Structure formats: structure tokens, C-alpha cells
């Protein structure tokens, strides 16, 4: 968390990204600029895993990924080919492990359709590295998407890693 280990951490993150890129494809898009998603209402992040036959699309509404603003996200869960699952459940959580705290709010997941969820009440109360967990349950199979993102004032969002497990 502090200066001393900062250098080391950078390296770990870099290798982590390369490692996970092998199994996860992710794309980030926002109209106009590429990865500056903050506050963009039409920004989309997509994460795909061939081995789990799973595609997760995250779309922000107002204040998407902005610091200190309550925001609601749409999350669509589908098969790789875009086909919806019939029965799927999702649980969301997150926090800042390096600071030893969870989310500053209690986000709630609401099911919209068979495969579309809204997560309401997400807030990032501090700049730094946040971990977000999306637990997807289909029948007996549980898959977790772990996102590691870095948010700072005045800087572009960095997705440090995305991992399915």
C-alpha cells in the first residue's frame, strides 16, 4: 500500500494481467475516448471466458466508476455465443483488500430478466485498487469473476486484472 512496496506491486500486477489475459478476454469501450469510463453513461466492459462458456457485460449508468458517487450498474450474463441462460443467480461484493475494508455501501443485486441484473448502490469512497466479485450461480456450478481495478482522481481507469475462477 505504501511507497516501499509500490514498485514490487507494479510488477506483480503487470504479470498478473498477462497471465489472466490468456484465459480471459476483456474489452472496454466507451463512445469517444477509449478507456476513460468515468461518469460515462454508455460505457461497457465485457469479460469472456471460453472455458466457463460465460460472457459478462457490465454497463454503467450515471456516474459510472466515478469516485464518491453512488452508482447503479447493469450486468448481463450470457453464454459466449450470446445465448441467455435459463436459470442464473448473481451475488456481488467488493472492497479494498489492501486497506482491509469492504464496500462503503451495501450494494443490492436485483434480477431484471433471466440474465440481466442491476446492481444498485455501488460506491468507491477512495482512490486506489478495488476488487470486485461477481459470483454467478447456474445450477450446481459457481463461477466467480474477480475484477481488480484502479481508480484515481483525474486519471483513467485501469483494469489491473480480470479473472474467472
Amino acid at each position, binding site marked *: 500500500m505504501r511507497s516501499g512496496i509500490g514498485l514490487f506491486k507494479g510488477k506483480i500486477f503487470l504479470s498478473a494481467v498477462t497471465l489472466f489475459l490468456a484465459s480471459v478476454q476483456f474489452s472496454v469501450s466507451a463512445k469517444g475516448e477509449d478507456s476513460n469510463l468515468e461518469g460515462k453513461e454508455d460505457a461497457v466492459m465485457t469479460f469472456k471466458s471460453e472455458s466457463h462458456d460465460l460472457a459478462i457485460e457490465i454497463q454503467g449508468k450515471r456516474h459510472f466508476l466515478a469516485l464518491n458517487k453512488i452508482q447503479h450498474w447493469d450486468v448481463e450474463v450470457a453464454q459466449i455465443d450470446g445465448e441467455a441462460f435459463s436459470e442464473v443467480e448473481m451475488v456481488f461484493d467488493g472492497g479494498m483488500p489492501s486497506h482491509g475494508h469492504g464496500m462503503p455501501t451495501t450494494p443490492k443485486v436485483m434480477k431484471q430478466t433471466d440474465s440481466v441484473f442491476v446492481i444498485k448502490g455501488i460506491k468507491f469512497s477512495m*482512490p486506489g485498487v478495488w476488487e470486485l466479485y461477481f459470483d454467478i450461480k447456474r445450477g450446481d456450478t459457481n463461477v466467480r469473476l474477480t475484477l481488480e481495478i484502479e481508480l484515481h482522481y483525474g486519471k483513467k481507469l485501469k483494469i489491473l486484472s480480470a479473472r474467472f475462477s
Partner: protein
Amino acid sequence: MRSHPLLTLCVTALIGIIGLIGILNIAFPEGEGGTIWEEQEVAILRTLAIPQNIMEQSYESLTNRYAGVEEAERFGHRLFFDEDLSINRERSCASCHHPEKAFTDGLPTPISEAEPITRNTPTIVGSGLSAWQFWDGRRDSLWSQALESLESMNEHGTPRTLVALRVAEKHKEEYEAVFGTLPDFSDSRRFPPFASPDSGVQDSDVLWAQMSEEDREQVNLVFTNVGKAIGAYEAKLVPARSRFDEYIASLNDQGEVMEGHKSALNQKEIAGLKLFMDEESAQCISCHNGPMLSSFEFKAINAPDGSDEHTDRKDIGRKEGVIKLLAQEFNCKSKFSDATPEMCDELNFVKADGMELEGAFKVPTLRNVALTAPYMHSGVFNNLDEVLQYYNRPMIEKGVHIDVEPLKLVPHQLEQLEAFLMTLNGGIAVEKEWLQAPPMEGVKQNKKYAAETSSINF
């Protein structure tokens, strides 16, 4: 443990280098007007400046439709300074929130005749920009905060029916100009002065329970409107631009002071600002951010509160505050709020549990911080130097959650940080009349009151 020679060498070398950097920093400060900021840092700096539209960021207007209504603000101004609202007619909000101290009182904790008050009087300047009121955020608007101050034995101690009666007695016209006709409270069997569900006055809850539902509603309506007028006044009290804001306004995108401008900050203050913003070392900005230099979130820095671990209970801050918030009858989702329940995001998604709430307090604003000593929820630190010394060596205890780490800054860096904090004094962005006891013409008043207001001199 025996230290490894190589480690010792490395550490010594590191200390040497750090020292050298420090010396170079003093010996060769960067020239004025030169590039001191990277573009990214300029972008961050701009998020800290007071924006033109600061009023639009007010939380008060979410639940209080009288926020921004001038008549309500004027009425609230009078109520804020009105000692007749306290049970013994001796105390007003301004007795503890002095305008010339950015609405604080200069004491570690206020003097109280009832139970001892264990918390420091916070500034009110900019409080309307926060979703939470009090150090533990147990109220979620200025108007509902005011209602607690009115009834609390430690503050005004006035049961709510008596608040309504006093307003009817003294402020009828003003009240009606804003809120419409006052109910007729003259029947004291229907409206016993000491009735309240939530005051420290003995048996007030019994009297309240004996009132008819309809009569209680009428009292509640006047009571909450009084809160909303006070809230409207307080919401107006936002910080004015300081030298720090002037400095940011003078920078171009490349971080240079633009031609024709003089740097509003000196080198020492700029060095302090750099430390303040450094997310790797001092990390102040991770909690003290945005135009108010506060995220208004709840964080634990474990500042001492004077409690003795054997005799007293430590102040657990937000952990208890959030329970009170959810239980209180005047929150954003209550029927007295002007918001619809689905607009209450902060309340709907509030974190109600978790070990990180224990001992966590609302991050205070640093606007006008030089005027608001003593510091922290407990008022333990008398000056900014003591605050910074604490951040340099915070109290880290086993098993106690804490959100800060030791800064390990050297003395001249602490001085730079302090110099920077002193640049945040900009006062309050309202005309002077709002910061004095208001004229009371046209208001029915008792003699004592008239004498006192004319002698208040800010």
C-alpha cells in the same frame, strides 16, 4: 533480532538518499512559475477547487424543498440565533456554533449542564454538501439534525410541542409567510408544552402518547418545518474561495502559473500541497478529497478520545451512528422528507454493519481548518501541529481496525503540510449580514431577548 549487515547498509543508504533529496528540496526550490505539476496532477487539483455551481451539490435540497428559498433562509437565520428556542431561553445554536470561528466554539467539547458532551463542535460551513450530519452520521440532513439539537437535553432541551408553541408565540408571521397557517395551539390540554416522544424531559413521552394522533401530526409538522428553515439557512453557508482555489485557477493545463498571475501559494505551501496529494506517502487526499476536502465517508484513524479503557466506554462512532440513523423518524425516507424513498440512495444502500465501522468517524472538511481548533471528534488536539504529529505516529493497536499508516515524515515536511492547511481559509461565501445575529424588527420579542441580541457583537 540481529539485523543483517546488508540490510543495514541498504537502510543507511536509503536514509542517506532520502536525506539528500530533502536537502536538495530546501536548497533548490523550483523556480516560481516553472512547471511543478504534471497534467494529471492539474486534473486532480481541479477536483479540489470550489466550483461555481457548488450549491448544486447540496444534499439538503434533496429532502428539504425550502433550501434555496430566501424567506425560509431568513427565517432560519433568526431561529439559529434565537435563544427563546431553548428550554430556559438562554441558549441558541450560535452559542456553540460561533460564526467567526467558522461556526465552531473553540473548545475541545462544549460545556454542558446536563450530561457531559463528549464530542467536539464541528463547523457547519459546507455541512449541507454532505449526506451525513454529526461525527457519526446519525442524521442525513441539516433539518433533521436541527431537530435533534432542539430536543436534546445537551443542547436546547426543548420538547417538540414547546418548540411549536414558542414559534407560534414569537414567529407566527414569519412562519406563515413560508409554510402557511399555523395550527391553533392555544388549548394546553390538547397541546401540553412538555410533550414529546423523544426528549429528555421527564414524562414528556407519556404526555405525547396521550395526545390525539391528529394533534401530534400538527406538532410534528411545525417542528419539522422549523428544522427545514434552519436547514435552509445552514445550507447557504458554503465556504468561499481561498488562496488555494486562487492558485488552482491560476494554473494552465501544463501546471504553470499563467502569465499575468502571481502564484497565490509560496514554495513551502506548494510543497505541502504536493505531500497532501501524494497517494504513495501522506495519502491525505484518499480521504480528504473533493471541493470540501472530505469524502464525508466514515474512517477510523483511532484518534484518542480521552476515554480510559478501564472506566469509560470508547466512542465507537459510526457503528452506533448508523443504527440511530436507520431508526430515526426524520430520515430521508420518512414522511416528513421531501424526497421520495427511491431518491434516498445514500440511505437505501448504507453500510449498516462491518468491523470497519467501529471507531470510524466522518472525515471532516478541511475548509477553514485554521479556524476550527481544537480538532477531531473528541477535540483532543489543540492545533494542527498536534494533528500532524499524530498522523506521523498514529495509535496502531492489535485487533483494532485503522485506515491510516504512520506517515514517517520529517519535521520540515510536517511544517510544509501545515503551511498548506493554512491556505484553506476563505471564510464563508455569504454577505456579512448572514453571519451576525439578525435584526429582529417585526418579530414579537421579550425584553430580555432584545437586550441580548443588540449586545451580540461578531
